[in-house]
């Protein structure tokens, strides 16, 4: 590694690396609030979108509190912009920590991407160039964030549609470099791996084999939209079989990992997502039994 010693060991390196698995969860969506609280479905945990609850008060926080009383919760953000060349937004971090104080989440995650520079926000998960310079920059910022939050964060691989001429390594090498240097955890989005492997024509299994398995704290699963020559990560449809196969492959390599399904559009009744989650349970049951 070119930048050994550039980053001081943060406090969290002293704590055990991975946290216990939460089992099988869903993304918390407003359409399902009442159903969840009334029917107490067979869902082990919920992932909440941090920004949706970074508001002063009212219904969103009321229901968040109710869900937290009944289920373990993890916080997932979209605006940390950990890869931005602009300084870290301290106001955002303060609000994030304040929300974490309220939620007491099992963990906090965001994306390995950038969302804007010069005070602007594009509200998209924009890809980073896979270079030593960028990896060093990101790792330094992850350490800052982890020190501020007092815990390791999870970084998620994003779906991407373009790759840079400047990149000098693969995405999985880039992720590995950052996670080792910053001593952070990973949120492996298996659908995003599939989408990016399709869009950039790489081997999805090589990606899974290439990231440090001891750092994978959580898995995301979702549906997407295939346009023929490329795929858009839309989170608006059921998970397709090749992504389930990749999930099975991941578990065979990594073992039991907290898994959840993201659905952000065309949100079906909760029952349907619970049924889809059962597929994940069944796959995990089969793979982990075989491994044992």
């Amino acid at each position: 590694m070119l930048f050994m010693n550039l980053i001081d060991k943060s406090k969290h390196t002293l704590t055990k690396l991975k946290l216990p698995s939460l089992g099988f969860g869903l993304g918390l969506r407003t359409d399902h609030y009442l159903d969840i609280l009334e029917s107490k479905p067979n869902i082990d945990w919920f992932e909440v979108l941090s920004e949706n609850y970074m508001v002063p008060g009212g219904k969103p926080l009321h229901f968040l509190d109710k869900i937290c009383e009944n289920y373990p919760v993890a916080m997932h953000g979209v605006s940390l912009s950990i890869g931005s060349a602009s300084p870290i937004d301290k106001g955002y971090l303060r609000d994030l920590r304040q929300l974490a104080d309220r939620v007491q989440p099992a963990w906090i995650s965001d994306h390995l991407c950038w969302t804007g520079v010069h005070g602007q926000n594009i509200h998209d998960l924009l890809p980073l160039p896979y270079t030593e310079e960028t990896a060093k920059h990101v790792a330094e910022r992850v350490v800052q964030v982890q020190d501020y939050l007092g815990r390791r964060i999870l970084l998620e691989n994003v779906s991407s549609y373009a790759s840079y001429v400047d990149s000098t390594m693969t995405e999985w090498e880039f992720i590995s470099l950052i996670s080792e240097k910053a001593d952070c955890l990973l949120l492996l989005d298996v659908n995003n791996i599939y989408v990016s492997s399709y869009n950039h024509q790489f081997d999805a299994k090589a990606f899974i084999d290439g990231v440090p398995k001891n750092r994978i704290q959580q898995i995301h699963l979702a549906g997407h939209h295939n346009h023929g020559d490329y795929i858009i990560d839309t989170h608006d449809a059921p998970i397709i079989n090749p992504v389930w196969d990749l999930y099975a492959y991941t578990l065979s390599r990594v073992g039991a990992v907290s898994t959840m399904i993201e659905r952000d559009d065309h949100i079906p009744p909760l029952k349907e997502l619970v049924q889809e989650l059962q597929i994940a349970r069944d796959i995990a049951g089969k793979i982990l039994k075989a491994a044992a």
Partner: protein
Amino acid sequence: MSHLAQLQADFQAYLIDDIKGVAFKNRIIDDIKVGVNKRLGIYYDAYRFRIIEALATAYPKLHSMLGDDLFESTARSYIDQYPSTYRNMRWVGDKMQTHLLKMLPQHPIAAELAVFEWTLSLAFDAEDAPILTLQDLAEVSPETWADLKFVFHPSVQLLPLEWNVLQIWHALNNEETPPGVAQNSEPYLIWRRDMNSHFRSLEATEYTAIQLAISGVNFGVICEKLQKNTTEEAATMQAAQYLSSWLNEGLITKI
């Protein structure tokens, strides 16, 4: 500027204006399968679609009133005019009133409908606070009423409107054809109760009284101000009725 900073500045410039930022294409790997134009087009379109969707969520009745095409073109020019500086999409539409006054000056109803919807949304997720009841007031000795000052719930807002926004809002809410636009100068009270936004019109005297109460003057002064066109007794009765309804509606958090 570092390589990364330059790359991101160029990418962002391209997303904001793909003609001016065209040189950025050279930084992306081109290929036969998809091609650089389509690849960058995905990001260019997603930037706009995502914010248009957020604006449609923030302004559902404005969307209905303008129709899909005019709403979309208004939203696109809004994005060009006011690039988001917020981490949270919740706030991206906060300049819509200003934008509509410039974009559609011949239709001031559009800006008023927007400010009405935005105010409803501010009430929806305003800070939480405990609510006082009539029972709490009953515990206060009547001799000290004149000195009472009131703290209103953080969701409480007063909105003077010049047009028949409410009639149009109700019609659109019921998926009916809205009435024609007409001037209708009336102030409105907007607040949150039982986790939902509420609103009602205020007649002139109550508007004066609640403005005074919100500004922090005491009950005695409110009664005095209401005496302008009536007796002291009638003004006090009127102020007490207002106070009672404000408490019943969950508007007051502290005395």
